């Protein structure tokens, strides 16, 4: 049961693998830098084409699986690897391939200051990421999913720490890895338990079991919850979302690819893939929904107070992921998946746009920007397009998917989350346009930001020295091209959906669309008044929400909490154990040996050197023997 969809998918999966192998193994080639980069890009392009073909080739409803035995045990095959190409996976594959390709292209320009070896290293990571992300998307079973899941985590770690000489980057890298790993512990446990529960890793077989009701429900909730934990870590749900903002230490294209469009959505994707499994455990779905909504709100609030443009985008990503999760929790995974796709496109666009701005001014800080629209028209246009999509304005990509999620939440009967999401929609529009106005339109002199950032925004020092005082202008073609492609993408999707309405398995109430639009516009209006027209004093606005703001500036103390756990629980406890091992466990051993040595010294004192004492020895021995003989006779 395989058709060319499967084959194309396989091809698009293997091309990045090829480029990874070549770059990783052929050391000198990698050190060349740009040629390596172009090679990788070529492979990415190829895989994009293949992915598109796969998407096109897959006929609706049918599924093509290619499996190879991977892990034998007990005489039979325990686990397989392969490709599972169906509607979901192929479209997701296409998205991944697209963004990956564009980002790699974009990076050539963005990282033009890097030394060739560093550039080579970067593209090795990129290729590996593309491969593993595609592997994740096409995974036919939980095991391969987990394998690729970990690999993308690794790539994220490596790419966040790409500028590892910067302490903050090194820290952020390990932080990201540990936090997500914590989630993965849950996922791993979940998979093991599920294997024991159902006797297989394979989605296809498992789904068959699920639909035939062959999976015992007892204890299933625990299992799905464990699996969900993995998603919490990867998709930055509360409380494990804290790694994502720090992850912005990585190069901006990386953030666009990994921390906006693809990897962070892996959690959502997994839940979408296994909706039939989660459908069996509504209680867990409820948790998913509420946590999602809460995350959305939390992140939105945090986004409002950031002065680092990338952090704003990061928090908005978290918030949007919360959106998707809520929809899934409401029981309408399709809606969440749709938003995942559109979000992937326009959030990548936003990040790349932001990257262009940062590249121009050599700073992440909004305060260093302002009025850039005049000097970088193209960037400004695409950035606004992205923002409109995110804000959920009609005819743009985000609009329908967002409305779909709101509708789904409503249809799921989750009133509280729905209210929260509406609020978040408002906030989203507000903070995004705050960025737009501050960065692009309001002139730098004009705005003195009332919002002092909690953490000094890290500046790409070496870059600053590299091209200091160079006139700010639009980036080179390799960077602009991807921007336009994505911009056209988001508009195109928007228009497409306005005319070809995707059928939903639920009906939105008539008032929902207007309400959503109004909320968004309101948010935009507020931002306009506060940061462009200045009719509302931003400071006053800030003071109005003073308590929340202070809390938000401290990131609700979550980071401190985790810091504390790391320092006190892990390091402290390890110190204790280390001490015990060295001075008690080993100490006892030393004590025993020392006692033996002492015993030696003591015993030898009977060897007094006096002949008569020796005879004493004989006499005593004799006496004992006689007593013994007596005792034997008795």
């Amino acid at each position: 049961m395989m058709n060319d969809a499967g084959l194309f998918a396989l091809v698009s999966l293997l091309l990045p693998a090829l480029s990874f192998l070549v770059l990783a193994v052929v050391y000198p080639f990698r050190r060349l830098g740009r040629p390596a980069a172009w090679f990788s890009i070529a492979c990415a392009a190829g895989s994009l084409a293949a992915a598109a073909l796969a998407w096109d080739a897959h006929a609706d409803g049918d599924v093509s699986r290619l499996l190879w035995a991977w892990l034998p045990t007990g005489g039979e095959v325990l686990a397989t690897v392969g490709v599972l190409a169906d509607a979901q996976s192929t479209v997701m594959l296409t998205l991944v391939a697209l963004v990956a390709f564009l980002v790699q292209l974009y990076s050539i320009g963005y990282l033009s200051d890097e030394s060739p070896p560093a550039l080579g290293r970067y593209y090795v990571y990129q290729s590996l990421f593309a491969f593993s992300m595609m592997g994740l998307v096409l995974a036919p079973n939980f095991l391969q999913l987990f394998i690729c899941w970990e690999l993308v985590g690794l790539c994220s770690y490596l790419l966040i720490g790409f500028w590892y000489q910067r302490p903050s980057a090194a820290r952020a890298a390990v932080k990201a890895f540990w936090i997500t790993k914590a989630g993965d512990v849950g996922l791993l446990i979940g998979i093991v338990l599920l294997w024991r529960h159902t006797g297989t890793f394979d989605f296809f077989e498992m789904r068959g079991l699920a639909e035939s009701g062959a999976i015992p429900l007892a204890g299933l909730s625990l299992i799905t919850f464990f699996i969900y934990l993995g998603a919490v870590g990867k998709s930055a749900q509360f409380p494990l979302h804290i790694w994502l903002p720090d992850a912005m230490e990585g190069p901006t294209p990386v953030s666009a690819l990994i921390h906006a469009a693809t990897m962070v959505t892996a959690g959502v994707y997994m839940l979408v893939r296994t909706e039939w499994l989660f459908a069996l455990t509504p209680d867990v779905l409820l948790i998913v929904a509420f946590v999602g909504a809460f995350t959305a709100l939390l992140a939105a609030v945090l986004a409002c107070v950031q002065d680092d443009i990338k952090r704003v985008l990061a928090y908005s990503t978290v918030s949007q992921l919360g959106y998707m999760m809520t929809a899934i929790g409401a029981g309408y995974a399709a809606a969440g998946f749709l938003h995942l796709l559109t979000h992937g496109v326009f959030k990548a666009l936003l990040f790349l746009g932001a990257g262009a701005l940062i590249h121009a001014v050599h700073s992440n800080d909004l305060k260093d920007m302002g009025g850039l629209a005049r000097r970088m028209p193209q960037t400004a246009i695409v950035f606004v397009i992205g923002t409109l999509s995110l804000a959920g304005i009609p005819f743009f990509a985000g609009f329908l998917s967002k409305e779909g999620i709101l509708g789904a939440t409503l249809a799921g009967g989750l009133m509280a989350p729905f209210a929260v999401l509406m609020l978040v929609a408002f906030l989203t529009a507000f903070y995004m346009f705050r960025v737009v106005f501050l960065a692009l339109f309001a002139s730098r002199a004009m705005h003195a930001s009332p919002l002092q950032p909690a953490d000094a925004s890290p500046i790409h020092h070496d870059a600053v020295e590299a091209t200091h005082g160079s006139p700010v202008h639009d980036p080179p073609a390799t960077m602009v091209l991807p921007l336009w492609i994505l911009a056209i993408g988001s508009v195109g999707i928007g228009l497409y959906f306005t005319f070809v309405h995707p059928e939903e398995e639920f009906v939105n109430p008539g008032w929902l669309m207007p309400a959503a639009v109004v909320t968004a516009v309101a948010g935009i209006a507020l931002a306009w008044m506060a940061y462009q027209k200045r009719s509302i004093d931003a400071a006053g606005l800030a003071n109005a929400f003073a308590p929340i703001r202070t809390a938000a500036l401290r990131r609700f103390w979550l980071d401190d909490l985790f810091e504390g756990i790391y320092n006190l629980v892990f390091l402290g406890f390890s110190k204790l154990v280390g001490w015990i091992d060295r001075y008690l466990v080993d100490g006892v051993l030393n004590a025993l040996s020392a006692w033996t040595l002492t015993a030696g010294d003591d015993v030898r004192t009977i060897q007094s050197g006096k002949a008569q004492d020796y005879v004493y020895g004989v006499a005593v021995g004799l006496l004992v023997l006689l007593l013994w003989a007596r005792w034997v006779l008795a």
Partner: protein
Amino acid sequence: MRGTAYELLRLLLPEVTLVGLAILVLVAGLISRPSTGAQGQRPIAGWMTFVGLLAIFGLTFFIREGSLFGATFVLDGLAMFAKRLFLAAAALSVLGSLTNPQYPFARRATEYHFALLVSLLGMLVLASARELILLFVAFELMSIPLFLLTGFLKKDAVAPEAALKFFLVGTASSAIIVYGLSFIYGVMGGTMVESIPRALASGHPLMMLGMALLLAGLGFKIAAFPFHMWAPDTYEAASTPFVAWLSVAPKAAGFIALIRLYIEGVGPEALVWMPVVSVLAGMTIVTGNLMAIPQQNVKRLLAYSGVAHIGYMLVGFAALSSSGVAMMLFYLVAYMFGNMGAFFVVEAVARSEQSDGIDAYRGLAQRSPLLALAMLIFLLSLGGIPFVAGFWAKLYVFLAAVESGLYGLVFLGAVLTVVALYYYLLVARSMYIDAPTRRESVPVPGLLGAAIAICALGVVGMGVYPGPWVDVAIRAASSLF
């Protein structure tokens, strides 16, 4: 049965020739008086002894088993085995001492070798004695020259002291032995060994008393705790090649006597000795090893480790089974090679460094690698490490003990082996790890080197292919049951 002269000669061949050799050495020594104070001259007596011993060793292969004087004097497998062991050990020791530069050895070689031969004669007889009086006489014939030889370096400050200690403890113990023998005689109403089992079976208190006394006395000879105390002092003071012999041959003789009196033909009654011998073995192993730990003088260290080894042999003895005895005999041979070899190396080092201390061995591996390697091999053999004789020896006695169900004893022994390795490794550390104080290599006289080489070959040979040796031991022991 009454042996014809031919019979007599055939069975007594080794002893007779040995007497002849002794007289020959004496006479030769008398006629060729060495010029006074001639240093390092080749003592004719020594050579004669050595060659003679080799010859007799060869002769032992031409005598068949049998018995004489109404089974007073038997030549069974055990006796053969023992005699060859004694002769081999003596030959090795003589070889090692031939080039001994110490003044008395050059000056009074005749006396030295004569005494040695006489003591050896005692051993040979002892190995065959199946009658109490003969046994006792042989025993004394063996012991008395040993006291003398211990004090042979008479100008030396400590040698006489050692001799005195050895003598006092020794004579006291022989008094105890003969006291015990007297009871045994009294109960049996005769002096033939083969009637012991019956007497033992009768369970007469005096019999038990006598056997207990006897055990104590023999305990001295094999230097088992707490009768071992003479050993370290004696070893330290006496001349090394002699000590090498002293540490092996008399102990072997003691064990032969033990076997003859306590196991041979006794049957199930023998099991009555199992607990006491086990305890004896255990204590000997523990104390011997513990006391060896703090030693700084290698000769003393070897002395104490020797005590511990006696303990291990006693483990084999405690098994009170055919295989136990066999394994013990095998152990004796392994111990002979290992221990004598070690002492010879000590001799070699002592001659160049004028010291028996462990420090004298610093960096020996870099000064003369082969010597160090030999020492290492001997130590490992004593420590019971694979591919050298000691390993199989220990293993076999443990095996025998386990067969008799002495798990505790075996475990104790096995654990104490680790302690033993600790102090052996201290010497190894000094030889291999520590940096040498001097660069030039240690000169080893050819003959001493030969002796060392023979021991090394023996140790390694037995270690790599123990099969035949085991079979020999088993055959020797099989004659007892």
